[in-house]
């Protein structure tokens, strides 16, 4: 199985806004911490080590 790099978000604009809302009011350090936690939550949803390795590569 390979990482899906085609558009897959059902509502891209809605997700982007939700992400901004989540960061609203945080300072830079708090935002970085929030992002770190979010990465682990999403990584757990993916689960597959091969996909996660590809995701790490895609984000470099």
């Amino acid at each position, binding site marked *: 199985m390979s990482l899906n790099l*085609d*558009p897959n*978000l059902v509502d891209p*604009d809605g*997700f*982007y806004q939700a992400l*901004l809302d989540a960061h609203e009011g945080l300072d830079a350090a708090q*935002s970085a911490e929030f992002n770190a936690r979010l990465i682990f939550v999403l990584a757990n949803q993916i689960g597959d080590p091969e996909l996660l390795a590809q995701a790490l590569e*895609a984000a470099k």
Partner: protein
Amino acid sequence: MTMQDRYPIAFQLYPYQRSADQDAKAPVTHPVVVVGGGPIGLATALDLGLKGHPVLALDDHEGVGQGSRAICFVRRTLEIAHRLGAGAEMLAKGIVWQKGRVFHDSDEIFEFDLLPEDGHRCPAFINLSQIHFKKFLVEAIERANADCAKIEIRGKNRVDAIDPGKDETVVDISTPDGSYQIKANWLIACDGARSPIRDMMGLGFDGRVFEDNFLMADVKMTADFLTERWFWFEPWFKSGSSALLHKQPDDIWRIDFQLGWDIDREKELKEENVRNRVDQMLGGKVEYELDWCSIYTFQCRRMEKFCHGRVLFAGDSAHQVSPFGARGANSGIQDPENLAWKLDLALRGHAPETLLHSYDEERLAAADENILNSTRSTDFLTPKFEASKKLRDAVLTLAARHRFARPLVNSGRLSVPCVYDSLSGFGPDAIVTPKRTRPDAPATDAPLADGYLLDKLGGGFTVIGFGTSIPSAQNIEGLHVAGLTIDEISPETRERYLGDEASAVYLIRPDQYVVARWAEYDKGKIASAIRQAIGKDNKCP
């Protein structure tokens, strides 16, 4: 008494003329008075005039102001203009486009092709200056008047005060010859984002102001750039934190630069400074003239409601959006489209005045949808805080490498007509598919054996039978209801209206929205749906 223009005039279209109302002993009463001579005011006057009502439009200027402002007009707007008799000129003059490119710094992140669907009378978009858009509406008004409409536009007639009553509003008007009074049974305020009428009534206009300034310049040059929308985030030429280049007719190009919040407006508007920015963008090798420029800040806000007794608000006076997505004029023009037929039926006594509540309900929903989209685009373009800038830049970086991130890039989501999902006055939906032409949605154009579907719809309610026969005219609830039988089903018509059904019957409102649909014709069901659509079956108190 002299009246100073607030802006220079490009075309003088309706010079001041003394009217008999100014010499009348008592204020003359007009059934419908439109305040404002912009695209929305003129469309309102034209639509109601074509429906047979005498309309008086008041404009404090004598024609169309310089500066093109709105430039992108979408299919729905052109369809409305066609119904009003102004579409052909707009299509002939406008520039059709469908492709665009998005850049970050000096890299092209991606290009897009809006791949317009075949089988429509109107293209997905044209670029046309607001100057011409308005001029064509005035010409359509002149043609309508030659054909018995009674639409009067009074130039240099400025509304100074209004006194709204239950049945009529007293209007104080200034002219170069002094002031006079009239009365309006209905007053429609299309007097722009700074609406003096709204202020006179002490009504609020709340929302968000975006802390950024945009320099808009219209540049005249003969350049062989493509007819595409080019958008730069953080452009390499450093003329702004974003930039846009888009072609208009007559060798005019619209250029936008995002300047930031703390700027010296006067300094930025100096020709040499505007030229510096344009030179940086164009590489300094291109000859051009500056046709017009202005600096804007953007706001997304709306009135709490648009109907205040017999004073109604439409267009920018009622709701304002940032320009990304071309949702200002294009959504504004749908207000009179929605309003005119309802006011027409109320004026004729065919529908209760409470039908106008649905104007509020439907256009408030549309305003909220437009404000949401426009706010999201502006948030992407002008990140408010450090983390949002980081997220935005991450999207741009990823979009250059991976297709998945492209839908997240937001330089404007182009205006589409609102679907009034779950609002009252629609239904039933007895065939369920196709989804795009469901009740609450605008009817989609389709090619017929002899022309286009939307051209066949008149000014009233229409019943369309696809593959089933419909009486060509009937009287329902005191209304003339037209019938249209379509026997030859093109592939587009099947896809847009029939799906898997052998036949389908659609009831269409005068503003070309689908009210209800069934597999077969049943006059009783149609009558019931019409009663609901004109507010006669209102179950709520």
